[in-house]
């Protein structure tokens, strides 16, 4: 009798296993979330040291055009003006997105509306494969093909914003294309049928109905591509020339946040101003990636609302 009573009052083995399993899996999740916070904490603590420990003026940091931490600039302050890199990063991101978007949308429309069979058989697998090509390979091809091409066509050394833009264009094209194609595929079939039934041509259907219904998805694709372009380090670093000057044209050597980071972080001493200034650049990268994330979420929410209405 007592035995039964005891077994009823005690936790069963199964429930112990259950609790342990749940705890372990929760721990794994907590670990990932913890890592994210650690990343933000570490990068921010280093990045903010430039302003709090080394007392660099924030405005001066974002608007200064001289970057040579460790030496003093013309105004007697340490030369930590990040503007050239910020401009460089934004320029190549925006330019590459501007070039890539029409091509990506055109290809995606072709894949989904004009020739779905060939799209599914050839274009789809090829774009998906290209998404997986390592960025150093893009950088290498940029160095071998794009830089000489730019040098021979537009003059200059070939290294610069234009080469970076071309490399990033090819890099983000597959990503944006396949995401746009997903967005177009998600447009309900009866939208197209309704439009065709009204006597619209295929192009009118595409332009007036399908593309408009897919706007949120396409915007997400473009912002996603921009986020990738903004954070891309090595491929850009290899072709941009890495001169921390404000770019005065598209073929002169320039620099981006990521390229200066990859070049510099190993050559500076931890805790020095040179090092802290680089971490501030990393912090800008982090904040921008956060910003792109927010934009994507915002578009997603808006898009959902407009479909439900």
């Amino acid at each position, binding site marked *: 009798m007592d035995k039964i009573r005891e077994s009823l009052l005690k936790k069963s083995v199964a429930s112990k296993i259950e609790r342990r399993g749940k705890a372990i899996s929760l721990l794994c999740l907590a670990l990932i979330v913890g890592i994210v916070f*650690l990343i933000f904490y*570490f990068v921010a603590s280093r990045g903010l040291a430039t302003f709090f420990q080394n007392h660099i003026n924030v405005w001066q940091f974002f608007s200064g055009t001289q970057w040579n931490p460790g030496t003093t600039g013309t105004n007697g302050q340490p030369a930590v003006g990040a503007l050239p890199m910020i401009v460089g990063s934004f320029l190549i991101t925006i330019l590459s997105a501007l070039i890539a978007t029409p091509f990506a949308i055109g290809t995606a429309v072709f894949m989904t509306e004009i020739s779905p069979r060939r799209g599914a058989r050839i*274009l789809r697998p090829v774009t998906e*494969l290209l998404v997986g090509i390592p960025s150093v390979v893009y950088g290498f091809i940029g160095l071998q093909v794009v830089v000489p091409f730019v040098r021979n066509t537009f003059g200059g050394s070939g290294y610069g914003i234009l080469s970076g833009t071309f490399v990033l264009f090819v890099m983000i094209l597959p990503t944006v294309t396949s995401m746009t194609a997903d967005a177009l595929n998600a447009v309900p079939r009866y939208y197209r049928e309704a439009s065709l039934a009204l006597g619209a041509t295929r192009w009118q259907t595409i332009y007036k109905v399908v593309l408009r219904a897919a706007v949120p998805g396409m915007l997400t694709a473009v912002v996603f591509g921009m*986020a990738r372009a903004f954070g891309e380090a090595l491929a850009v670093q290899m072709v941009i020339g890495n001169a921390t000057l404000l770019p005065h044209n598209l073929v002169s050597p320039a620099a981006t946040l990521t390229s200066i980071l990859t070049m510099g972080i190993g050559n500076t001493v931890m805790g020095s101003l040179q090092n802290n200034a680089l971490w501030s650049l*990393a912090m800008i990268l982090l904040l921008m990636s956060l910003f*792109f994330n927010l934009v994507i979420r915002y578009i997603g929410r808006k898009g959902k609302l407009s479909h439900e209405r």
Partner: protein
Amino acid sequence: MNAKRIDKIATGVLYAVAAFVVIILIALLGYILIQGVPHISWHFLTSPALAFEAGGGIGIQLFNSFYLLFLALLISLPISLGAGIYLNEYAPQNTLTGLIRTTIEILSSLPSVVVGLFGYLFFVVQFKLGFSILSGAFALTVFNLPILTRSIEDALANISDNQREAGYALGLSRWETVTKIVVPAALPSIITGVVLSAGRIFGEAAALIYTAGQSAPALDFGNWNPFDISSPLSPLRPAETLAVHIWKINSEGIMPDAKAVSAGASAVLIIAVLLFNFLARWLGKRLYKHLTAE
């Protein structure tokens, strides 16, 4: 009439755009393979790199890439499996869960160079692991966790609730249902996700430059004691991977045949990524057939 002509013109333009993109993409793949494949030989794949003379190989780098990939998957798979299970099976639908999902999404969208810098600060400097395979594997883990968690969560979510209910009806606890029924059923898609993420890890360089280091010291392939620094298995030695090698010899190389070596190495990388892609598809299909007895 007018609308029809516009339709024709637009169709033509779309054909041209698609053709242009296809040409770019094929030229890209073709360039790498045509430039690189002739350079690939047994000697190239097995001999160590030479810094100042022509004729070096990528043997050590290739080994390092695979070893790092193996270690990174070894660490990240259990963690993301646990996290995926919690997210899909246990997590209540509330704000906190939404917040956690957002956090994971943020992690997956971080530029890989930032992940690498964090790895440098945290593993290399803070934990004094130095430029080592271990630091590199941890950095790759951070890089891989969000993607793998996401794909495992999706794989689990695709298992129908009938399976879970059947488990509960047999008196299994939730955890037992998950580990004995749901995870095995989701195994094909989990494995596909793992192999696809392996392809991504294999080509990653930015996260490794400041964690696994940029040098590949000579290895003694007869020495398999993991605690010896010259052993290939030693987790504390610096290890330049294939992708980092391509970057390194192109950006500051003094190697006379840097172009040929990087072309060959790029081709090897691409072929490896291709293989991972095919492997993922093939394994997924094969396992699915095996498990569902179709």
